[in-house]
């Protein structure tokens, strides 16, 4: 058993030597140097020696032949010629295959390779006119002798050859009847002597410094334990936080931090080996596709977690193959383009702000965006509409979609349709991102950003149903809190909850749904009330799919070590593993990919479903009005009123004795100003207030030059609600409409009309100085009939011609019929079928409609909406219930023209 283990370990080391051999050959190909030959010699020598010890005769035979050639080149007996390279590669490959073979090459036929190699020697020596026969016999003897020396010297347990052995061996040579060969064998012997003790150190040596080999499991365990020590330290620190003298404790705490850092570093290794093996790959590819290609490698010393390095090998191979087969053009067409006939591929790694960036760049033809999107269209990945609209960069990014390959001819190198999507998913699994840039005719460039360590991931710790869960930041896009009064709420489509996130619908999942326990307990079925609360969810990314997972609360952010799931829980694919948190609690780690797969999420389905629903809505306009802040007050005990809170300046309480009578009008002195009081019973048919009330509330407005106070007998509430206005039962233009608030019929006041009524002279005369011309045509778009009529009334009252539409789509149809007819468009934002943002987007991208200014009209007065509207392309913005600003906005556009 021990022997087997030793052999296994030995074979591993031999593979590394073969890699050295390959690397040396590549260097040799570029330029001949004695250093390289020495390197090759050392590698073959080690292989030969070791395999001889383990009795792997065929390998010994071949490596011996190879070594022989190297030695002769080194000693100048044979001149190196570039045509030798091919044979050397053949030998190298054979060695590799033999080492990997279960019988260690015993069944391999290597005679022809060996004879080829010795033929090289012969041919070369022939040129140097050295006696053929002499050399041949010398060769044979040397093989025999050296074999003896090796077996003598390599004794298990001791590498240092004993002096007796040395002497004996030397004597053997002394006795040998050889003259020409003697010097050489002496040399050889010296080489043996100095080399052998060095070998054990050389094994496993990387770039500089002394190294030893350590079992990975040992490192993993060390890492786990260190993690636990850190946790215990934190507990200790908490426990002794009160104590005065804790210098020892803090020293220890510091040392533990250092320890943790060092243990993490033990898992790091330079990426070099993985990168340099591509030299061979490119060399072979270059032959296969018959294009001269060179590979330039930079940053081999960049360190990454070994797990990441291992996982990177396949995706990089795939991408390099892509560069060679699709990217680089053949020499002829490169020449006609004035490029260097030899194509270049650059492969580099570097540290960049805590991450490692790996770049794969070529100077080939670049990615043909049109071809990509054409293919995507044929495969049904994009619609014909998207085909037209998609930007070049987005089109190039389609190469990451499953099943897409632009190679016209499917070869064994590439074009099999599995490719970049797999690359991307591997990179994402490692917590990285991949991006692509391409310039047609100049080349393409892929950049992979990776975290340096796999095991430690910065994660968000959240609570769901009382349990704690961790989600790595790399999979988390954002956290969204939906308040009851937010513009966009979680909606339901086909029993599935969805959320409109910046124009796309994303499914919202509950953990109970994901884990399948939702329907288990009938008592646990969420009642409708529960959906009427604030809800918070994580937006997770799995490839191109986004979805939300509802959480209860956020705990904190923590660097966690993700432990793989025990096999017994392997079926729970929605978890990436578990983790021990800082307070030694165990939390499950969510996996975005896992959830996505287990739920078979496909956002496309959802979106198409949404389209169907949209068309349904064209027939039945669903009320999707915006919400508004309202101040609710009463006039007398019976009558409830509401005014938009955005128009309110102040509410003050006054005593009835403060009210003064001036010229039959009641007023009050507030902050040194005489405020005219408005009693609503003067304008509406209401019972007058009873005199016995001792105090009143005075509501003052923000409307300029309307310095009046509206009298209220009590203030009920300030609420945020959807305004479902019905037309007032009795026509009166100071009432916008009636609605039900707090279980009562409430009249919503139009403060501007009220202002006009109170002081007609001041308002009419000054404000609406614009005299609209006959040709001035306005298009007013609003989905709510009430507001639509109100707006129409506003504009018609000052002389405009008004056309109305109930949504963006309808408006577009009207506009497209006769684009020149309208001077100005005034549009609501939130509408069914086509909302204001979409409308403005289309208008600003349609040449005929580009010149028509469009003003957003909403019931939101907050700054945020204002900015959002302007950013979306609206030329102006006004608040729906604010007649003055509406007219001002309209005014400014017409005057500007």
């Amino acid at each position, binding site marked *: *058993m021990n022997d087997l283990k030793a052999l296994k370990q030995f074979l591993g080391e031999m593979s590394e030597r073969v890699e050295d051999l390959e690397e040396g050959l590549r260097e040799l190909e570029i330029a001949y140097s004695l250093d390289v030959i020495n390197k090759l010699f050392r590698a073959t020598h080690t292989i030969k020696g070791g395999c001889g010890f383990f009795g792997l005769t065929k390998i010994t035979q071949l490596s011996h032949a190879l070594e022989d050639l190297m030695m002769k080149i080194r000693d100048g007996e044979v001149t190196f010629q570039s045509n030798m390279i091919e044979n050397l590669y053949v030998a190298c490959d054979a060695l590799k295959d033999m080492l990997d073979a279960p019988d260690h090459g015993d069944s391999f036929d290597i005679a022809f390779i060996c004879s080829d190699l010795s033929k090289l020697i012969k041919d070369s020596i022939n040129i140097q006119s050295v006696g053929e026969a002499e050399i041949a016999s010398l060769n044979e003897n040397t093989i025999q002798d050296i074999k003896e020396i090796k077996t003598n010297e390599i004794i298990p347990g001791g590498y240092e050859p004993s002096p007796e052995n040395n002497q004996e061996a030397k004597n053997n040579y002394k006795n040998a009847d050889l003259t020409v060969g003697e010097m050489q064998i002496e040399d050889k012997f010296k080489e043996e002597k100095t080399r052998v003790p060095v070998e054990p150190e050389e094994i496993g040596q990387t770039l500089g410094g002394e190294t030893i080999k350590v079992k990975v499991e040992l490192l993993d365990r060390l890492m*786990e*334990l260190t*993690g*636990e020590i850190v*946790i215990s330290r934190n507990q200790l620190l908490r426990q002794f936080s009160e104590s005065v003298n804790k210098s020892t404790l803090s020293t220890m705490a510091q040392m533990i931090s250092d320890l943790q850092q060092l243990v993490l570093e033990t898992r790091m290794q330079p990426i070099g080996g993985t990168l340099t093996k591509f030299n061979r790959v490119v060399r072979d590819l270059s032959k296969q596709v018959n294009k001269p290609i060179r590979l330039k490698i930079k940053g081999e010393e960049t360190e990454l977690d070994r797990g990441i390095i291992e996982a990177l090998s396949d995706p990089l191979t795939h991408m390099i193959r892509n560069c060679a087969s699709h990217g680089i053009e053949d020499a002829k067409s490169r020449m006609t383009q004035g490029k260097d006939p030899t194509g270049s591929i650059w492969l580099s790694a570097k540290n960049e702000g805590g991450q490692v960036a790996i770049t794969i760049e070529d100077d080939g033809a670049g990615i043909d965006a049109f071809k990509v999107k054409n293919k995507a269209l044929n495969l049904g990945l994009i619609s014909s509409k998207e085909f037209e609209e998609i930007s070049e960069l987005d089109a190039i990014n389609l190469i990451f979609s499953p099943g897409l390959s632009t190679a016209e001819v499917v070869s064994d190198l590439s074009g099999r349709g599995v490719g970049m999507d797999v690359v991307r998913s591997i990179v994402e699994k490692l917590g990285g991102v991949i991006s692509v840039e391409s310039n047609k005719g100049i080349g393409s460039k892929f950049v992979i950003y990776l975290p340096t360590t796999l095991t430690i991931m910065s994660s968000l710790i959240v609570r*769901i*149903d009382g*349990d704690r869960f961790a989600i790595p930041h790399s999979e988390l896009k954002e956290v969204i809190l939906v308040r009851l009064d937010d513009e966009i709420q979680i909606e339901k489509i086909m029993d599935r909850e969805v959320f409109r996130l910046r124009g796309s619908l994303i499914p919202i999942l509950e*953990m*109970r749904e*994901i*884990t*399948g*326990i939702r*329907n*288990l307990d009938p008592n646990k079925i969420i009642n409708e009330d529960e959906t009427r609360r604030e809800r918070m969810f994580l937006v997770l990314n799995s490839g191109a799919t986004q979805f939300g997972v509802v959480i209860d609360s956020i705990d904190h952010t923590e660097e966690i070590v993700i*432990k793989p799931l*025990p*096999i*017994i*829980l392997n*079926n*729970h694919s*929605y*978890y990436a593993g*578990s*983790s*021990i948190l800082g307070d*030694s*609690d*165990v*939390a*499950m780690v969510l996996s975005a990919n896992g959830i996505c797969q287990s739920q078979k999420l496909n956002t496309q389905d959802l979106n198409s479903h949404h389209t169907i629903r949209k068309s349904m809505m064209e027939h039945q306009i669903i009320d999707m009005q915006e919400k508004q802040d309202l101040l609710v007050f009463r006039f007398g005990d019976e009558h409830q009123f509401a005014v938009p809170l955005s128009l309110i300046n102040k509410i003050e309480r006054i005593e009835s004795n403060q009210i003064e009578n001036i010229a039959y009008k009641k007023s009050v002195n507030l902050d040194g100003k005489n405020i005219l009081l408005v009693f609503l019973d003067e304008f509406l048919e209401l019972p007058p207030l009873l005199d016995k009330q001792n105090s009143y509330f005075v509501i003052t407005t923000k409307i300029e030059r309307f310095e009046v106070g509206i009298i209220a007998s009590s203030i009920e509430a300030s609420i945020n609600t959807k305004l479902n206005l019905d037309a007032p039962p009795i026509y009166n233009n100071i009432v916008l409409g009636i609605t039900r608030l707090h279980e009562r019929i409430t009249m919503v006041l139009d403060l501007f009309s009220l202002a006009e009524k109170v002081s007609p002279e001041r308002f009419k005369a000054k404000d609406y100085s614009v005299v609209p011309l006959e040709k001035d045509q306005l298009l007013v778009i609003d989905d709510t009939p009430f507001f639509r009529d109100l707006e129409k009334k506003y504009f018609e009252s000052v002389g405009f011609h008004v056309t109305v539409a109930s949504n963006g789509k309808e408006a577009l149809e009207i506009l497209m019929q006769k684009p020149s007819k309208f001077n100005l468009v005034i549009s609501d934002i939130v509408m069914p079928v086509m909302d204001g943002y979409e409308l403005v987007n289309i208008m600003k991208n349609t040449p005929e409609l580009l010149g028509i200014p469009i003003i957003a009209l909403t019931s939101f007065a907050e700054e945020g909406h204002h900015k959002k509207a302007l950013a979306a392309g609206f030329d102006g913005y006004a608040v729906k219930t604010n007649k003055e600003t509406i007219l001002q906005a309209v005014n400014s556009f017409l005057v500007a023209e």
Partner: protein
Amino acid sequence: MLYSIFRIHNNLFGVPIISILEIVRYSRFYPVMGSPEIIDGLINLRGKVVPVINSGLVLDGEKVTPSDDSRIYIFKNNLELNDALGDGFNSEISSDNIGLHVDSVCNVLHVDKQELQQVPENISHPFYSYVVRKNEEFIIILKPSQILNLDIKPTQNHELKFRYQI
């Protein structure tokens, strides 16, 4: 061979001591949302996350509830078991350490091979390997490898009962 004897409800069960890594007190189970009821949850065993199986439910009985007496048998994983068995033996138990939650620990018994009897037909169960009569008591020897390699399916649509694979 030495067996560790424990109690599940009123029955005595035994497992070979060599398969056990350690026996710990019940501390706290961290639930795995979505796992079937037979998984009590995960425990933090000095930095190692170990899933715990409820022995009562596995053996088709009543659930073992955490108490002062209840203990968790932590079984060795394949590597640890084969290290303990020494060269030349190769036995499979489970690739991970897994815990078994039992009502209480009784004692350690030495049982000779000839004392092991076949399981009577009427109490036959896939997880029983032998029965032993000792000191007037009837002990069932379990097959830990069967219990620890249950094919655990995440709960889905009303499916409360787990299915064990034999």
